[in-house]
């Protein structure tokens, strides 16, 4: 209902009217909401989704998260080396929670020559249904991201109240181990606490009295059972009175009592009494209402019957556990399904999304980026990023000239029919690929909920954009045999399994080979993108006087090392900068000079041009490697200088021995002939990037914040 209202509100009035008219005169209506899946309808939805995914040609996905970066200095910068980029990605995926998962399977329906889409919008909340480790489940929220989601009417109440929980594979294994040990405990009495009691004779007077009383009560009950059946009702009356805590029931066709209202110590004593004095009674624990275990005393005819009972109980318990674990696995079933069906997964700028899926549902992210990249393919063999697809094909040059490749804009441009809900003849390209939408049993050929930044709808848009893009590339769906063939389509081979590492500098990675390339420009030669970054030329400087601007820092250093010594200065945040020197030797010189100045605190060092930077005595400097060390830490302080202090950096200058191998050097230029179908990003994007970087280097901090917000929004929303 909420979605329906939203749809009406978001549309211009005139359009809404035509929609209503249309829905009156045609059998198909556009006014049904997206399939929202929460805890309550998850099982049923999963059952349907299984069919849809199996039949699908490709599955579009999208995620909404509680944040992107845990601290301003952890945002993506141009000067990030691949390992740093991965550490930042890992930090983000580890800290933030997924609150919505959009899954939209697309299947080509030859009968109507259209794609059939099943958009699903899963509300997610990491609830930890089975508490295993005893640690609480916690996640981070970025204030700006929550506000962003709120702006697009994200329903936090539905998410927290009704969101589907999940368990990763590792957690599932742990839960299984825990349950097995619990059963061993039930059947073998190996629990340390029960051992304690057994070991020592019952010594407390209260215990002795209680044990005796229980012994007599239990034997009373047993004797009552053995008496003639037709006298039963008389006895029952009196029994009820005396055994308020004993409830007569039948368990697995055997007479039994349910034990109510005993403390755990008393229960242990009862267990002991039963074991020692009543061979024909079995003390068992079965799951009762809620999460508690219910304690039962069951009467058995013989030892064989008792063994049989125990076997049955164990079977029931195992079945129950299996169910519990299955329920706790929750949302992971969807991801497992994608993975096991080896479907082509389509996302828009989805590097972070994939990392979230990996860390939440598969395993903790590996320590190095290389390991991560090589293990993605095991779980998601075919991934396509629509943003990359659009940017790297000359066919879409027109789009790039006109619009940016943000999801909403690409969707609006490529699929005008779907956007307006009306058939238009004058599209910029060939006629649109038709996409019909089915939610439950309702099917429509012109559905559009318009709820941007809702994972389900975003996934739908992504899928539409992909279908459209394929058609422009000349892929004929009519001739496709189902399933993996689309992924093997020759025309897509340039893009499959390549993702943007960062679209700040257009670095992309090929998941199959692990090679990283910068998007090369076909026509226009942009110095900006061709410049190689030598990380050994970079000094990380932090803790300098807060008023110092980038230009002033540059001036100070240039005074000492010459006008051309500093190539550029980048602000990480207000407390830290990267100083990019023109030569690697200057890095060592600078660090040595700094150390010397700090050591001899004489008038000469006070008057030294660098003293302006060293003022305050907290200025620290190190080479690029230390940046990695700092990014590796799980802590995220707001300011970089605080972060460095928190992770325990006590030195002021880290002098390093230059290594022999050139491993610090990373080329960010295009590597010859390795990537053919690539073209330059749009003019607009470059302009934007340049302005971002201008903002960075001129040290306008408030602009930086605006930029970061913009960036965050762009990344969430695309």
């Amino acid at each position, binding site marked *: 209902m909420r979605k329906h209202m939203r749809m009406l509100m978001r549309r211009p009035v005139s359009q809404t009217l035509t929609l209503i008219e249309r829905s009156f005169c045609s059998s198909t209506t556009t006014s049904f909401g997206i399939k929202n899946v929460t805890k309550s309808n998850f099982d049923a939805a999963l059952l349907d989704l299984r069919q849809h995914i199996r039949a699908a040609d490709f599955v579009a996905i999208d995620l909404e998260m509680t*944040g992107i970066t845990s601290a301003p200095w952890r945002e993506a910068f141009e000067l990030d080396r691949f390992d740093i980029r991965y550490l930042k990605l890992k930090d983000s995926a580890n800290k933030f929670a997924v609150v919505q998962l959009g899954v939209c399977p697309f299947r080509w329906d030859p009968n109507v020559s259209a794609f059939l889409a099943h958009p699903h919008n899963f509300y997610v909340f990491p*609830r930890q249904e089975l508490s295993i480790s005893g640690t609480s489940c916690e996640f981070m929220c970025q*204030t700006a991201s929550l*506000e962003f989601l709120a702006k697009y009417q994200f329903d*936090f*109440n539905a998410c927290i109240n009704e969101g589907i929980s999940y368990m990763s594979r590792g957690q599932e294994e742990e839960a299984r181990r825990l349950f097995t040990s619990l059963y061993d405990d039930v059947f073998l009495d190996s629990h340390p606490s029960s051992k304690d009691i057994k070991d020592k004779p019952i010594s407390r007077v209260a215990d002795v009295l209680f044990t005796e009383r229980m012994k007599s009560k239990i034997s009373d009950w047993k004797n009552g059972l053995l008496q003639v059946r037709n006298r039963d009702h008389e006895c029952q009356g009196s029994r009820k009175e005396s055994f308020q805590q004993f409830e007569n029931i039948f368990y697995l066709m055997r007479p039994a009592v349910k034990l109510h209202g005993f403390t755990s110590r008393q229960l242990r004593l009862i267990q002991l009494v039963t074991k020692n004095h009543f061979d024909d009674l079995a003390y068992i624990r079965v799951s009762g209402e809620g999460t508690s275990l219910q304690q039962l005393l069951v009467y058995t005819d013989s030892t064989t019957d008792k063994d049989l009972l125990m076997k049955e109980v164990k079977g029931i318990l195992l079945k129950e556990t299996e169910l519990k674990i299955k329920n706790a696995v929750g949302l992971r079933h969807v991801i497992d399904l994608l993975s096991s069906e080896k479907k082509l997964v389509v996302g828009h700028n989805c590097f972070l999304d994939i990392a979230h899926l990996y860390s939440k549902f598969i395993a903790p992210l590996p320590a190095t980026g290389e390991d991560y990249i090589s293990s993605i393919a095991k779980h998601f063999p075919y991934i396509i990023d629509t943003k990359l697809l659009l940017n790297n094909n000359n066919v879409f040059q027109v789009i790039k000239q006109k619009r940016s490749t943000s999801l909403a804009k690409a969707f609006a441009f490529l699929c005008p029919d779907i956007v307006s809900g009306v058939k238009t003849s004058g599209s910029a390209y060939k006629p649109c690929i038709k996409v019909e939408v089915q939610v439950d049993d309702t099917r429509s050929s012109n559905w559009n909920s318009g709820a941007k930044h809702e994972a389900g709808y975003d996934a739908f848009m992504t899928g539409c954009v992909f279908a459209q893009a394929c058609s422009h590339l000349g892929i004929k769906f009519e001739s496709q045999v189902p399933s993996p063939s689309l992924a093997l389509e020759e025309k897509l081979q340039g893009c499959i399994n390549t993702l943007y590492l960062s679209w700040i500098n257009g670095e992309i990675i090929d998941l199959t080979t692990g090679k990283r390339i910068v998007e090369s420009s076909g026509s226009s030669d942009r110095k900006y993108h061709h410049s190689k970054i030598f990380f050994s030329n970079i000094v990380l400087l932090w803790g300098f006087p807060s008023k110092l601007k980038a230009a002033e820092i540059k001036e100070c250093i240039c005074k000492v090392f010459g006008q051309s010594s500093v190539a550029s200065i980048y602000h990480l945040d*207000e407390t830290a900068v990267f100083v990019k020197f023109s030569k690697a030797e200057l890095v060592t010189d600078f660090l040595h000079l700094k150390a010397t100045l700090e050591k001899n605190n004489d008038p000469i060092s006070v008057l030294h041009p660098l003293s302006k930077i060293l003022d305050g005595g907290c200025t620290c400097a190190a080479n690029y490697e230390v940046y990695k060390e700092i990014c590796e830490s799980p802590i995220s302080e707001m300011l970089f200088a605080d972060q460095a202090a928190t992770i325990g950096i006590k030195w002021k200058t880290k002098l390093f021995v230059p290594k022999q191998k050139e491993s610090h050097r990373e080329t960010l230029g295009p590597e010859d002939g390795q990537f053919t179908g690539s073209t330059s990003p749009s003019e607009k994007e470059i302009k934007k990037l340049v302005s971002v970087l201008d903002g960075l280097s001129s040290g306008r901090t408030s602009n930086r914040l605006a930029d970061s917000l913009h960036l965050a929004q762009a990344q969430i929303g695309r």
Partner: protein
Amino acid sequence: MSSRRPPWLLQRRFITTNTHTKPTSNPTHNPKWCVKQVSKSNFSETLENIKDQILKSDYIAVSLKKTGSHSAPWHRTLPIDTAQTAYLKAKYAAERFQLFQFAVCPFSIRDSKLIAYPYNFHLFPRDGLKLGMPCYSFMCQSSYLTSMANEGFDFNACINDGISYLSRAQELIARNRRGNPVISNLEQSSSPHSVADSLFLGRIQSRVKSWLKACKESKTGSEDALIRSLRKLMVGSEEYGSRPCLRIDVCSERHVQLALEVLKEFADDVVPMVIRAKGGGIQAVQVVLTSSKEDKDIFEKEQQCKEEDQNKLVRGFREVIDLISASQKPLVAQNSLNDFTIIHSKFLGPLPPSMDEFRTSLHLAVPHVLDISHLMDEISPLKKLNSVSAATSYMKRRFFAPIDAEIPQKVEADESKSHGYDVLRISQLFAKICSVLKISSETDKHSSSALKGYANIFNPYSASSDNHMEEDVRLSTDHPQKISTENIVFVWGFTLGTSAKMLRNQLLTSSEVLSDEFDVRILDKSCAVIAFSKPDSSTKFLEAMESGGNNCDSLSNLISEGLRAADYETYKRVCSLGLWEVKLADSLDKALETDFDGHTEDSQKESTEVYWRNSDLINLDEL
């Protein structure tokens, strides 16, 4: 965690999912008890009301709803914690988690009658000024969010309509970063002028003079629009509101001072204002020309109002904290250490590194903090009652102390589904405690001195305020037995699932160093503490561990299986270095890896004591 919620919450949950039924059978929902819910939309009107009520009332109760508390069992305050380690734990939580609800209740007690004005403020750290403040990101624990959701808390409303705030420290930063001109109130020093200074002075002086002249001329003669704009261009005149103004760009603080010095000369008609640069520091001095003395006064007043309005917007909910602080009324809270570390970090400023500094810093803002749990200690010294509901039911069982609650303010019907009852429960419990302890409720000097003995105790396990300087800790909550921290040793690396008794037996048979006089407690799954009753035993034991078993086979066997040990100083270092791993064992390992330098001096403290209890395990749930 979440499975252990009280049954009435489950009931409410059912109600809230079914929106058509009204909550009727909520036992805590007394129709008289209405807590005024305050969000962004009704904040300013509420502020007026609460201001009076704070001034009139005797006490103010506060209660907070956070997004989480501790991430691992050992992160909560344990009986073995000293005041300092307990503070560091509270600090860690306060800095990470966020406040969503802040309930305030000014109340008075008159003849066993409680007159209370409860308010529940909904907060969200919205970055209204786009400065990355009050907080860039925060942590949430799903169990906390879930239990809030079960109480029917509306997260959508919280994020959309929650009141934002800035701490006092953040306000200072924000003021410097906003680019608005502010009337200068800089101190003017009269240091001798250098040549460069004199040149600058002269330039400014002539510029201001010519500008003034131009302004006066243009006022008299009616000029052509074109000429007027040309003139404006030449003298660099602009307009501020309806008044003409001149902008003088400056490069340093010194320039600002010089410019202000020049402007003193024209003080009769011009008002100097400073424009701060976004990154801090002053960017320019703006000179506004006023037409007369009266006009000048009006202008200055206008500016003040404008600034005040701006500041109100910036401070947001902190206005309430400032009101409370200004009233100097005693505050009543439950679990004051956790609550007031949060209050300090969100509304005053960053938390200092030590408990004593925190105490001093907080004292400046809030002089009297009364902790319900310490007052309960007075009534039931043996049993630790850590929740408001446990304490309330205890009081109900043991004492006859009827308290009538009166809530004079009216709350609209649709607000009946409200939150923040805890603050009322706290006020009521406090009233009961006062009547049982025979503390007169009138605010005369006598009674406040009677309560003073209970004020400002933050360590949850210390009994009175005067021993806060000592670092005495206990091993457990009941039957306390003081033990010096010197006699405590942490051991870890034993087989998972080992009970305290098993561990004790293992240790007992393994070394001659260990006579029978020691006790073992399991702290978390990974780590245990040993308390020795003889002063030297701990050192002897640590030495034996250090030497790899001291020629004792079974101890060296244990060591080779992974057993490790550390003294209390290591634990202190864990807390001060912020090594908050999930398992205490990992933290201790890390602390041992880090260098020892710098901690030798601060550890030469007085002898410290802890409490010990005769039971196997510290029951973490009762803490």
